[in-house]
């Protein structure tokens, strides 16, 4: 367990050279070794989706991936969404539609939706609800999240 590997995690375009145990999860490496604490840990068994990040454009539960598996791949996290102080359309829609309360699950939802809308900008409302049902939120009851995502998707299509 103690044999460590040198890997490079590229997070939001920045390369982080780190040394990790083979068993280290990607989310721990992102948070603890790279200091990007916007990605949250909710269950560590792949159900809640709070730790969702994009790896080479695909939404991934970063608690179920090992850091060494992400070596050299492009990782995107919530910290990379805004442009300086300017929130992106999805973030703005979450604010306008009250798509968050405590905000703990929010980064996971934002990254899940970002990945899905990039791949499938014309996703149907019903498919969207299916996608959103892969992450858990305990505060909002989801309908404000659904509204926010629909609004952002419509705006992005324009």
């Amino acid at each position, binding site marked *: 367990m103690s044999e460590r590997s040198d890997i490079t995690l590229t997070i939001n375009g920045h390369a982080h050279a780190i040394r990790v145990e083979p068993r280290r999860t990607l989310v721990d490496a992102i948070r603890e070794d790279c200091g990007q*604490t*916007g990605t949250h840990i909710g*269950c560590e068994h792949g159900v809640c989706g709070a730790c969702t990040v994009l790896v080479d454009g695909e939404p991934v539960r970063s608690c179920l991936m090992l850091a060494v598996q992400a070596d050299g791949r492009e990782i995107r996290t*919530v910290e990379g969404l*805004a442009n300086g102080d300017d*929130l992106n359309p999805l973030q703005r829609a979450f604010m306008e539609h009250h798509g968050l309360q405590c905000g703990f699950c929010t980064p996971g939802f934002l990254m899940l939706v970002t990945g899905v809308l990039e791949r499938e900008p014309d996703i149907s409302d019903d498919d969207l609800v299916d996608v959103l049902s892969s992450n858990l939120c305990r505060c909002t009851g989801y309908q404000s999240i659904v509204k926010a995502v629909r609004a952002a998707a419509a705006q992005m299509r324009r």
Partner: protein
Amino acid sequence: MAPPDAKPKEKFVGRSVPRLEDRPLLTGRGRFAADISFPRQLHMRVVRSNFAHGRIRSIDPSAALAKAGVHAVWTAADTADIPPIDFRLTRIECLEPYRQRLFATGTVRYVGEPVAAVFADDPYLAEDAAELVVLDVEELPPLLRADAEPGEFEPGRSTEPAIVRKGYGDIDAAFRSAHAVVEATLSIGRHSAVPIETRGAIARYDAADDMLELHGAAKVPHWNRAQIARMFGRALSSVHLYEGHVGGGFGVRGELYPEDVLVCAAAMRLRRPVKWIEDRREHLIAANHSRQQCHHVRAAVDRDGRILAIEDEIFHDQGAYMRTHAATVPDLTAAMLPGPYRVPAYRADVHIRLTNKTPCGTYRAPGRFESTFVRERLLDAIAARLRLDRIEVRRRNLIALQEMPYARPLDTLGTGIVLDSGDYAGLLDKALAAVEWPRLREKLAQRRAAGELVGAGVALFVEKSGLGPIDEVRISVDEQGTVEVVSGSASVGQGMETVLAQICADALGVDCHRVRVVHGQTNRIERGMGAFASRVTVMTGEATRIAAAALRTKAIEAAAELLQAPAAVLDVVDGEVVRTDSGAGPSIGLAAIARALGRGSKLGAEHPLGLTAEGSFTSNHMNYPYGVHIAVTRVDAETGAVDIERFLIAYDVGKAVNPMLIEGQIVGGCAQGIGGALLEEFLYDERGEPLSVTLADYLMPTAREVPPVQVLIREDAPSPLNPLGLKGAGEGGANAVGAALAAAIDDALGAPNAVTELPITPLRLKRLIGHAGRGERLAAKPQPLDRPDEAR
């Protein structure tokens, strides 16, 4: 011309202002417990009992201690000098011997009970070492049912430490003279808040100034501060708690738990910061559970369905220990059960029963989710028995508008129950109109005739909010003109910063975006009650309004001197003191007034220093919001699944400060209610081994299961107990979901009184469908609280 004491215009209160809290949370810049780290910190891993009940023969930490990087392993012997965690609310003295100590001492009483803790350089290492701690236990038979014969907690102490008794009136006479007696046995499953952020605590001791800090605090930081100081025999001024972002509270997070005290003890003794972050399995077996009760309820009614008396014997499954809430949930259950109805005679006996399961505390609408289910099931049963319409039977029993305020000879949380205001029948009408009830009934009847299992259910309830006794707020304007509201309240993600900023903005006369709100920092304000019982908007909100009004008066008085104008013609508008008697004339900003009141300035010599004011609000009574839930469901006879086609919640909050946030509270609460009504349940096997230890076993609703919820926010009955008329909005969304869904499913099955147990899982529902299909009469038979043999 507005005199300075005129009621300020509402520019922000009443509007759906986007939240001030959102930006850091949307950009990954929040500060949740796990995000906090200190140099040289140790990581704590708790070793937990894997036996539900047994005598500890030995705990061997030697293999764990032998690992490089492990600094200490503690057991009960190491913390014997630290007292058990005390009660925060609803103390009954005879419950005290049942309080939980930091570690199991001699006996383990539930799976998940802390028996040891490992302190190591790294969390992975701490977890490895914890696996090496050898716990040897002589297993004892577990007690798993609250309605079974009580056993022994320890020699000479029963597992029934107390019975909470509430009531009034001549029950026996009422039952003797009754036209009919309607009975039911009803039970509510064990479930809980399960926020997406698990618990966390980071303690730091600074020997340089002998200061103990606890980070990751939530809900009640000031109370926890005082407790921690008392438990360690430290001066109050040498302990501070710091609240960061809180990933969901709902009653569970922020109570003082063994782990919070352990990190403090370790930080002081090991002289390094100590961090503990709970994992999900731990959370599901160690953080407070809630709700599990069995009710044997009966009502005496006259021939018109009017209630003469209600009698309820309740078995409350408390789990293994009495935690901080002591008798809160049993107390609220008994006190709130009569709800919005006239109940001339009443008796509730709540047996507090300890079992070998995770200890329980409050969860959103504690005692009300449970008692509303029971009361509304009872009303439906009365309707069925007397062949009356379900709505009509409710109308006949509702407390009328003219009877308000309505004093009920019961008390709870140390306050007498006086229903302060409400138009219960009016709200019922509005809710029924919103769903077009007669047409809805007709359509459902047609669909049922075509073979579908569809139905509608209605449930009414009274909530409670604004628990006092006091809240204090200090507001200051600095020399740049920024307004800072310092409260002793807490944020659990509900949007309280925005709400307090809105209230402050209107009362002071500034833009709410110039207001910073401080909460949960014990070093910033001496006292604070925190965030629970839907109290923040009412108590902290009113204290904020009072402080802001005092600050406005102070600013105007200072401006009167500076502008050489009579105070009576001045007003504060958008942060500027202006003359209201002429369109033009000089004005002065709050920042300039703050500078003029600064040290060394001319005005500062004659006025109290600084542009700052305090406000406090005292309230000896809670106030009582109320609501109606209407559910429309379709039952799938093949799978036993319930599809919620429609859900309406009408809720009277007295005064809506931010309707968007209230809707968020109501819809979010409804989703949690749906979880408790249909999906969520902590199950145990016959040895007391928990079966719901991952989020794949403990099923919470997703975006698929929660329907669009229609919300009708009403301001029909402002509370007379505070000038804005505020009532709390945190719990009404959850309160009656179980009751309304049960009624809707009964209706869908065409089988009154069918649902007697929550959650209504597919398996239980399939069984009911089987009975209904065979045309059997559905009797409300006593149900065991736990069904270890039953899979979902």
